[in-house]
C-alpha cells in the first residue's frame, strides 16, 4: 500500500504539436483492436478543433488516485499495482457513465451510443496506437524497468526536510539504486537532517558520516583507502549541497579529482545556502535573488553568473561527470549505474535540486521546475565519460529561458534586458557543451 518509489510506470506520451489535421489513425487502430471488448468507445481519441488549430490525441492519465475508481457503483474499475493501469472490467460495467462524470481529465470514453464505459489499458504493455501513428506523435515511455534496479530503501520515513523538497526524493532514488553496500558522506546543509537525524532519531540505515564542509572528499579518500587496505571495496558516496561542493569544499573536491580517487561525489545544487537562510553561493545564477543578493532599487539579484562546476569537474579528466535531475529518472538511473561501474577513478554528479523556499514556487511543482530547467537548456543534461562529452537528453526545440524563470519568484524582478543577458549565458553554456560533444 501507499506510494513509494516502487511506483514507476510505463506511460503514453503524446506530442500534440505533431498530429496532422484530420488524422485519427490512433483511435481507428484502438477501435479495431478493442472492438470486441470496448463495444463502442475507444481508449484513445483524436481531438480536432480546426478553428482553433488544435490537432491532437487524448487518452487516460492512469492516475495514481483515480477518481473513476472511487465512484464506480459496482467496483468494476481497478488500478493494477504491477503495471499501474486503471482498468474497467467490461463484464461488470453497468454502463451508468458515472466514471466519465467523475474523471476531470476526460480519461473515460462514454458517449450517447455507449453501452459500457471504455478507457485505455495500454494494451497490456504493447500499445497499438503507438504503432499506428504515422508521425510518431505517440510514444510509449518505459519507466517501469527503473524499479528492477531498485534495492531495499536504506532511508526510513520521517525526514525533516521541507514538504515537497526534491532533495529527499533524489537521495532516496540514489540510495535505492546503490543499495545498502554504500557508505554515505555528508556535510552541514539541508541534507544534514537525513544523515544525522533529529534528536535521537535517524532515518538512515546504512553507514554514514558527517564531515566538515571543507573535508568531505578528504574524509571519503581516507575511508576508501582504509577499506581498500583491509581488502574491501566499499562504495563511498557523498551527497552534499552546492555550498559544500562548489564553495568552501571546492579545493578538497578539486584535490580528490586531481588524484582521481575512486569515489562518487554527488552535489545537489539548490543554488545557494538554503539551510542557513538563503545566501548566495557560487552556483547562484545570474539575476537570482538571495538574501545576500537582494532585488531592491538598482540591485537585481546576483550580478555575476554561476560557476559551471560540472564542466570544471570534467576538466579534471576524471572518469565520469554528469548532470542530472530527478524529473528524468531514466536518465538519472543510467548515470548512477555508470558512476557505480567506475572502479578506477572518480565520478561527479551535479543534480539540480530546486528549493521551494529559496526559489519561490508551489510545493507540488519541484518536478515541473527541474523539467522546465532542462527543457529550456538552462540545465542541459549531459555526461562526460572518460573525456567523451554527450548530451543525454537533447531538447528538439528549446523554449526561451523565460519559460523557466517565470516559474520562480527568485527571478521575478528581472527585466527584459536582464533576461536577455541570462538567455545569452544559457545559450553560451549550451553551445560549449554541444561543441564539446561534437569535438
Amino acid at each position: 500500500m501507499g506510494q513509494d518509489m516502487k511506483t514507476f510506470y510505463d506511460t503514453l506520451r503524446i506530442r500534440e504539436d505533431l498530429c496532422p489535421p484530420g488524422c485519427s489513425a490512433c483511435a481507428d487502430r484502438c477501435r479495431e483492436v478493442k472492438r470486441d471488448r470496448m463495444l463502442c468507445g475507444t481508449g484513445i481519441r483524436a481531438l480536432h478543433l480546426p478553428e482553433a488549430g488544435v490537432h491532437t490525441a487524448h487518452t487516460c492519465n492512469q492516475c495514481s488516485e483515480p477518481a473513476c475508481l472511487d465512484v464506480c457503483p459496482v467496483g468494476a474499475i481497478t488500478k493494477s499495482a504491477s503495471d499501474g493501469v486503471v482498468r474497467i472490467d467490461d463484464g461488470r460495467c453497468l454502463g451508468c457513465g458515472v466514471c466519465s462524470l467523475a474523471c476531470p481529465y476526460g480519461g473515460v470514453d462514454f458517449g450517447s451510443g455507449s453501452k459500457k464505459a471504455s478507457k485505455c489499458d495500454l494494451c497490456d504493455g504493447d500499445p497499438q496506437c503507438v504503432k499506428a501513428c504515422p508521425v510518431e506523435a505517440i510514444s510509449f515511455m518505459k519507466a517501469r524497468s527503473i524499479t528492477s534496479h531498485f534495492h531495499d530503501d536504506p532511508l526510513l520515513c520521517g525526514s525533516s526536510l521541507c514538504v515537497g523538497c526534491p532533495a529527499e526524493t533524489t537521495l532516496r532514488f540514489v540510495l535505492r539504486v546503490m543499495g545498502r553496500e554504500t557508505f554515505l558522506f555528508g556535510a552541514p546543509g539541508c541534507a544534514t537532517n537525513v544523515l544525522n537525524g533529529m534528536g535521537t532519531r535517524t532515518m538512515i540505515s546504512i553507514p554514514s558520516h558527517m564531515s566538515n564542509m571543507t573535508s568531505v572528499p578528504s574524509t571519503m579518500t581516507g575511508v576508501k583507502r582504509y577499506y581498500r587496505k583491509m581488502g574491501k571495496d566499499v562504495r563511498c558516496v557523498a551527497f552534499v549541497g552546492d555550498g559544500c561542493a562548489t564553495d568552501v569544499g571546492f579545493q578538497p573536491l578539486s584535490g580528490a579529482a586531481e588524484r582521481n580517487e575512486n569515489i562518487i561525489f554527488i552535489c545537489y545544487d539548490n543554488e545557494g545556502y538554503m539551510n542557513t537562510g538563503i545566501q548566495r553561493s557560487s552556483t547562484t545564477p545570474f539575476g537570482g535573488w538571495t538574501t545576500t543578493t537582494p532585488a531592491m532599487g538598482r540591485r537585481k539579484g546576483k550580478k555575476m553568473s554561476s560557476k559551471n562546476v560540472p564542466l570544471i569537474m570534467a576538466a579534471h579528466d576524471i572518469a565520469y561527470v554528469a548532470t542530472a535531475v530527478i524529473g528524468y529518472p531514466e536518465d538519472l538511473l543510467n548515470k548512477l549505474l555508470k558512476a557505480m561501474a567506475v572502479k578506477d577513478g572518480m565520478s561527479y554528479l551535479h543534480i539540480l535540486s530546486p528549493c521551494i523556499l529559496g526559489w519561490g514556487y508551489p510545493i507540488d511543482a519541484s518536478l515541473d521546475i527541474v523539467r522546465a530547467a532542462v527543457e529550456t537548456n538552462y540545465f542541459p543534461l549531459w555526461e562526460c565519460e572518460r573525456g567523451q562529452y554527450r548530451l543525454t537528453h537533447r531538447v528538439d526545440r528549446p523554449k526561451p529561458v523565460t519559460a523557466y524563470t517565470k516559474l520562480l519568484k527568485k527571478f521575478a524582478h528581472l527585466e527584459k534586458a536582464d533576461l536577455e543577458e541570462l538567455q545569452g549565458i544559457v545559450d553560451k553554456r549550451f553551445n560549449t557543451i554541444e561543441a564539446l560533444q561534437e569535438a
Partner: protein
Amino acid sequence: MSEKRKHVIVGCGTAALAALRAIRRVNSLDEVKLVTMEDTLPYSPTSLPYMISGRVKESEIPIVTEDFFDEMKALLVRGKAVVAIDAKKGEVSYDSGESEACDTILVATGSEPVLPSIPGLGDGQALRLRTLPDAKGLMSRIEGGKTAVIVGAGLIGMHVAECLAERGLKVKVVEMLPTVLRGYFDGEAGTMVQSVLEEHGVEFYTGRRVAMVEWKGGGVEVSLSQGEILKADLLLMATGVRPRVEFLAGSGVEIGEGVFVDDGMRTNIQNIFAAGDVACAKEFLTGEKGMNPVLPSAAEQGRVAGRNVAGEKAEYEGWLTMNIFRFFDHLAVSVGKTLPSEGDEVLIEKDDKKGEYKKIICRDGVLVGAAFIDENLSGGALQYLIKKRVDLGAYKQDLVRAPGETALWLMRKAENEKTVSIEE
C-alpha cells in the same frame, strides 16, 4: 512515529470506501473499522435499477470483495448498527448494547428514502428503491402487463420508469414539478427526456401532487391533485432522500439539512467527520452549505475526509450538482447550474427534431453550468472547467458547438498552464 490510532467509519458505501482508500494512500497504519447495519458486502443504490432491468444479478453488485478489506488491513463489521455516539468519550454504541472507544469517527451513513405524508399511503405496501431488500421486493412484483405508478421524477424515479417499461410494465410517473429531472435539467431538456420515455409508453403526470392513496384488493388507486385517479398494481415512491442521522441525536454533532461539515469534512466536533449523502457540505459556486447526494460528491468527500482522518490536511473544494442519465440509448449529462441567475450568460443550441440539446451557462467568462443531451463528451472535463474556473475566452461558442473536443482541449490547455513543465 506517532502511535497507532483507531478510526471507526460508520457506513460502508462509496464515501466510506473512498475514505478508507485515502487513509491507506497516505500510508497511515492506523486501525480502521467499518461498520454497516446491512448484512451484505458494500453495494451502491445506483446499481439497484440495473438489477431491476436484469443487467446485473445480486451477486454482481458488491463494490468490493472480502479480500479488499484484508488488502486494506481494515475490518468490516456487518449487520451491526451504530445507535449512538458519545462525542466526549469518543465512543460509538451499537444496537447489540456494546460500545467501543476510538480516536476518530467518520459518519458515512448515507441517506434513506423520504416519504411525503399522503393520506392512505401508509395503509399498504408502497415500494421504494434504496436497499437490496427494496430491490428484491420490487423485483418479486414485476410482471409484464402490470401497471406501476411511480411518484417522483428524479433520477431514481426516471431510471426505474425506464427499467419497468423495458420489462413490459405500463408505467405512470407523477411529478409535482412542471418537468422531470428538475434537479439536473431545465424545463426544455426535461421535456426532451420525458418525450423519449413517452415514446416508450411511459405516461407522465407532471405539475401534480398525490392527494390520496387507496389500497384496493392487491392494487392501488392514486388520486392526483388535478382530479385524475391512477389505478395500478404497484406504487413506487421515489420522492427523494434524507440523510441517516437519527443515531446522532444528543451527540452534540450539529445537524441541519444534514451533518454540517467544514472544508475538511469535519463536524463541529474535532474528532468526528462526515462525508457522502449524509453530509451538509459547501457548494462550490455559492459557498453555501447544502446536500448533494450523488456518487461523485460522495467519493470526493470521502477522499478528503479520509486524508484528514489520517492526520493529513485536505480541503474540499465544494460540490457541484451533476448527473449523467442514460435512457433508451440516449444520454443526458448535466454539470453545475441548471438555470441561470441574473447576469449569467446562456448559450444554447437546440433542435427538437434531431433531439439535440446543448446548453452552457457562463459567468464572467467562466463556465458555471452545462447540460447536453446525446453528445459524446466528458462530463468530468466540464466539471474541471467549472471547478478550476477556466477562462473560456473566445471558445464559448465552440464549447456549445463541439463540447466533447472543446472541453477536453480547454481542460488540457489549463493543465498545461498549471503544470509548469513545458516539454512538448
